[in-house]
């Protein structure tokens, strides 16, 4: 495939870098990345991956855009309130870069559909806002051996980690089980500074691009924690656990289960 003149201009700042070049840009255009959630994290991740020319971006979300989303979910707008978030995101990404094929799935991700949905993608990004989805996505990616970039945000703090099944840790190596619903911040406690998903989503998108390009280090066996109030980045080692219930030597979780149990998902 040769670049069009338009693509030479669009991707010129990539092509002139030794770590990317024309070859790297072609890898980006051929890559297929799936984003779980078209919310706070999914918006900036999708935005930057589309700008970078990631050729296929899948996204799943069952919600519609609400006014309270617009404080941080930057791919939506006043004109898409009431419309499906995935359609709103698809329209925004299409406007940014017509090279990108956005596959928009308005549905819930379940233990019954996730393996089939993810199987055609190279890399998965988790931008889900709840624990059941986080564990569902982790377990599915371990079973499918798909790299997973996982991000989370709350108030002034966010975290990112990169899971490479078979090579590094998984989310259950870090936290074996979801916290009981009573310990999870309730909807009215779960505030978030509007810019925080931009920082964390930007880091997630960066991890994706490095994986596609095969350049640099990723957050394998590490959790990166960002505290906006203290302006601090901290890395915590996360070893792969031999007794992990899903990625360990003798896994007890060998098929996907029912992950939902009384959690409330903040909008």
């Amino acid at each position: 495939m040769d670049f069009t003149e338009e693509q030479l201009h669009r991707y010129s700042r990539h092509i002139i870098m030794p770590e990317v070049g024309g070859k790297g840009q072609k890898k980006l255009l051929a890559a297929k990345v799936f984003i779980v959630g078209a919310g706070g994290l999914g918006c900036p991740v999708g935005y930057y991956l589309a700008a970078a020319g990631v050729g296929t971006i899948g996204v799943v979300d069952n919600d519609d855009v609400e006014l309270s989303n617009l404080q941080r979910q930057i791919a939506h707008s006043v004109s898409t309130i009431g419309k499906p978030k995935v359609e709103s995101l698809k329209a925004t990404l299409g406007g940014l870069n017509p090279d990108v094929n956005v596959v928009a799935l308005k549905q819930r991700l379940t233990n019954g559909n996730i393996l089939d949905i993810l199987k055609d993608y190279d890399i998965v990004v988790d931008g889900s806002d709840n624990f059941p989805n986080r564990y569902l996505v982790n377990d599915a990616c371990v079973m499918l051996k798909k790299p997973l970039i996982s991000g989370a945000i709350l108030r002034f703090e966010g975290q990112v980690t990169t899971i490479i099944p078979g090579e590094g840790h998984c989310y259950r190596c870090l936290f074996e089980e979801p916290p009981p619903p009573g310990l999870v911040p309730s909807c009215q406690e779960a505030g978030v500074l509007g810019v925080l998903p931009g920082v964390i989503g930007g880091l997630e998108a960066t991890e994706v691009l490095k994986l596609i390009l095969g350049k640099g280090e990723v957050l394998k066996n590490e959790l990166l924690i960002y505290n906006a109030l203290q302006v601090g980045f901290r890395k915590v080692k996360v070893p792969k656990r031999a007794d992990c219930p899903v990625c360990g030597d003798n896994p007890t979780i060998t098929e996907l289960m029912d992950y939902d149990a009384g959690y409330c998902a903040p909008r």
Partner: protein
Amino acid sequence: MVDEEITPDESIDIRGLVCPYTFVKAKLAIEDLEVGKVLEIILDYEEASRSIPKSMEDHGQTVLLVDKTNETDWRLLIRKEQD
């Protein structure tokens, strides 16, 4: 003169282009060559006559020739040393 002994394997004419597209075209042309082959670049953007050789060296390639061939044009010869 060194340039009379070297026959380029590929040649691109990027006259009329300005930075950074001069280097975009040069870099893509180098990427398409095999290691050891020589690329000839004809250009008329003065700044690129300096910046392309510098960037090519930064990227690990060898600059064999930078020659002002007439009032407006330059001719560069770059040998690809690595992918």
